[in-house]
């Protein structure tokens, strides 16, 4: 099978994917977009402050919840000094937190969708900074975080929080994973 044939075969598997939104609805939404553009911009501060945290949600079918599918994670140091955190299931957040701290990452980890109450948002939030410290990718059966400790400011730590969320629209339960920077302290990030 040559490259074109391979791509054609992949494309054909998407034949059943169809956009079912009627054009009238798109046009109405377009009018709303125009109206939004006419509104004064007042939310800039909120957007900047929120730039320290991002999140991803993986949907789990309701019939395959906890129990037999409890989670596991691994932490590995890469050649370029980055720390690779692979999360397959949500379990033992304290162990993950200990492991990261032992690897020199000031970190706080919770898997109950609650933040550590001792933690405070990082005082100099920046999406660019957060993105230079932490990256995320979705793999097969796992979520991967890449942490670059050398990019972490001396007064900042990494926060990883996750939890299970009801997701009635899709008829299942979602796992939400958020990560960002927090102010480093003994109570929050260990040092």
């Amino acid at each position, binding site marked *: *099978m040559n490259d074109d044939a391979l791509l054609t075969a992949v494309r054909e*598997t998407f034949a059943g*994917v169809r956009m079912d*939104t009627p054009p009238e609805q798109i046009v109405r*939404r377009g009018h709303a977009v125009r109206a939004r553009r006419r509104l004064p911009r007042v939310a800039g501060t909120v957007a900047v402050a929120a730039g320290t945290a991002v999140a991803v949600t993986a949907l789990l*079918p309701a019939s395959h919840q906890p129990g037999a599918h409890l989670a596991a994670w691994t932490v590995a140091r890469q050649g370029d000094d980055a720390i690779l955190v692979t999360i397959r299931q949500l379990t033992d957040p304290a162990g993950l937190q200990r492991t990261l701290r032992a690897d020199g990452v000031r970190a706080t980890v919770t898997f109950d969708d609650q933040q550590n109450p001792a933690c405070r948002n990082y005082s100099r939030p920046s999406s660019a900074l957060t993105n230079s410290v932490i990256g995320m990718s*979705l793999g*097969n059966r796992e979520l991967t975080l890449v942490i670059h400790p050398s990019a972490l400011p001396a007064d900042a730590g990494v926060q990883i929080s996750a939890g299970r969320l009801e997701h009635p629209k899709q008829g299942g339960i*979602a796992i939400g994973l958020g990560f960002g920077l927090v102010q480093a302290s003994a109570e929050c990030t260990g040092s």
Partner: protein
Amino acid sequence: MSNQRADFAEFYRRSRNDCLRAVLVNVGDQDTAQDLVAEAFARAWASWRTVSRHPAPAAWVVRTALNAGVSRWRRRRREIPLPDPGSLASLPAAAGAGDDPVDPQVMAALLRLPARQRQVVALRLFLDLDTGRTAEVLGIAPGTVTAHLARAIAALRHDLMPVLPQETSS
């Protein structure tokens, strides 16, 4: 105005499915892809005078949809629904999985590609963009597009050869 609306409606009718497929490859969830593409088409209609003159309006829609997805993701802690990776390959009988219009193994293979490779594949597969136009849309060098596409094809070949129907030779 009515001409513009008819023009836009024709563009929407002609390109909506391919745009949806291109975005789906990147976000992995059909509900999310539908919403992002609807938002992108709405923005296209809101700026139709400009977008209609774009050299590749469908690519503009896909790019806008993907940017909207990234913005949502970064704006604040909120949900970005993604399929449970475990449910893709090994749990075809899971709730709702039977309605999935895409072969779960193909989707899983695509989701395993790095994001940039997925974008290149999506633009090539569904919008039929050549290397130069793909490079313009993604803001990268043509040589980078070629390299991403080659790596993506190699990975897909490795993952999917046992799955996809094979050519027969006579």
